[in-house]
């Protein structure tokens, strides 16, 4: 029998999840709901990190995967009375299917072309929401009735349940990221990011690996989207806009690409930067922009990337 080695990375991740679990008992209401929101969005950021951070695929269209999950879940709730159990599964499937479909085409390109192609697909998805405005109610969006917002009988309108579901999703995303980063597949993804042609000439089907990375990323994005809809009750086209393709990129850059907890750190930091600065000025995005520039200048590898470089090379 192989003994289980307790390793630092696992301890760190379990510790982080433990701290988040404990925080729910001490946080005031306002921050309690914020943190639930951040955890779900961090799931989206971790999804983006799989394709961008670990594999080097710079997509500018991830909003479509998030929205695929959000709308698959939301529309099925609205028109078929599906609850959160079914909604989450549908969200995962929708994000996965969309990522595979887009990937089959977009992954024939690389670099700037890949950025443009993903951007265009996302724009098409965004416009599709308006085209079917009769069902989606476009920009205005729609509310998922509170009666449907239940998971195994627990109401997601209840802040405590909502927090726990957000935390569970977050923990699952951490586990997936950690697993990939530590696996032999993760090693190949990193190799593709570093030197694609060399990886191919070591016998790896690079296209298939990239497609798999994008598929996992899409499925996770879809899960985050569906969870967001059911936890906070609102489905709207903003979540499919270019803004929500740029956000995960910024979150990941801020927190540290190709680190497991970096996306969470970036999401949390940016959420509160926007939140705090908007209390003082309407030019809050300017402050966020300045903070980003400062961060990139002084910590080009993001928060956890810099920590890994200077103090903790074992950080996954």
């Amino acid at each position, binding site marked *: 029998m192989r003994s289980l080695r307790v390793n630092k990375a696992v301890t760190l991740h379990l510790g982080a999840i433990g701290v988040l679990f404990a925080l729910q008992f001490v946080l005031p209401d306002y921050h309690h709901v914020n943190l639930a929101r951040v955890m779900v969005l961090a799931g989206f950021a971790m999804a983006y990190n799989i394709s961008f951070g670990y594999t080097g695929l710079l997509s500018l269209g991830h909003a479509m995967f998030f929205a695929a999950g959000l709308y698959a879940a939301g529309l099925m709730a609205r028109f078929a009375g599906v609850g959160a159990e079914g909604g989450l599964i549908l969200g995962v499937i929708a994000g996965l299917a969309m990522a595979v479909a887009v990937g089959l085409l977009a992954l024939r390109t690389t670099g700037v072309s890949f950025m443009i192609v993903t951007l265009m697909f996302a724009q098409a998805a965004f416009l599709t929401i308006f085209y079917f405005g009769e069902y989606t109610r476009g920009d205005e969006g729609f509310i998922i009735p509170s009666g449907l917002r239940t998971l195994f009988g627990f109401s997601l309108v209840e802040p405590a349940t909502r927090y726990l579901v957000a935390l569970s999703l977050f923990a699952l995303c951490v586990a997936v990221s950690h697993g990939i980063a530590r696996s032999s597949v993760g090693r190949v993804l990193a190799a593709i990011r570093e030197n694609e042609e*060399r990886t191919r000439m070591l016998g790896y089907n690079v296209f298939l690996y990239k497609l798999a990375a994008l598929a996992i990323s899409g499925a996770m994005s879809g899960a985050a989207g569906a969870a967001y809809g059911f936890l906070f009750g609102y489905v709207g086209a903003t979540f499919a806009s270019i803004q929500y393709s740029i956000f995960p990129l910024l979150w990941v850059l801020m927190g540290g690409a190709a680190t497991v907890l970096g996306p969470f750190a970036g999401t949390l930091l940016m959420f509160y930067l926007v939140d705090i600065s908007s209390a003082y000025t309407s030019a809050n995005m300017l402050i966020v922009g300045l903070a980003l520039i400062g961060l990139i200048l002084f910590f080009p590898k993001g928060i956890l990337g810099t920590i890994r470089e200077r103090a903790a090379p074992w950080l996954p």
Partner: protein
Amino acid sequence: MAAVTLLSTLNLSKRFGGLQAVDGVDFTFLEGEIRALIGPNGAGKTTFVNLLSGRIPPTEGRIVFAGEDVTRLPAHARVNRGIAYTFQITSIFAAMSALENVKLSAQRRLSKGVFGPDPELLERVAMSALERVGLADRHGEIAGNLSYGHQRLLEVALGLGLEPKLLILDEPTQGLTDQEIGVFVDLVREIARQASVLLIEHNMDVVMGLADSITVLDRGRILAQGAPDEIRRDEAVRRAYLGA
């Protein structure tokens, strides 16, 4: 040992726009041999081996490897069949350690299903590839920080990690010191006990010292072929290449 054909090409051709870089090459390569591919700059040597490894598609012709027509196989599938290619311009994973580099080359072969290989086995195999090229004591160094000569050796170790049937080396000694070249010649000789080697090389001492036979390429065509002594005496080769 009976001469078994490992690789053959039939009318293999590659055209870049108006330039016929490889022009109807019929080439036969026997199992177990060390073959040198020589010829002036721009003769089409790199293009020819790129066709063999599948990095670029031919405009015409066929390639048969180990009895199988591989002309339409993508590059990665040919690697899996046993054709390993080391780049003329060093191409390694610069941000990873030397050991990590070789693990990447060995891991696919050692994997069973989607789950990776046993970590200890992988480590052992990767270390032994590094040992063979003499880099074992530098296994933890970041590949990008290695000296140029060591990076060339790491490139060869990547090839070894694949345990290929055919190892293609594209100008491996370019830029190496005389001492490093000596190490290299010994290494190729050692590798050739398990794999066949196709070597593109400009250094005639290396070629004459290593090759069982030589193919001379000039303007995309085979100009001459034969044992080192024959090639040395060949009048056309002297004119085109040896410059005497």
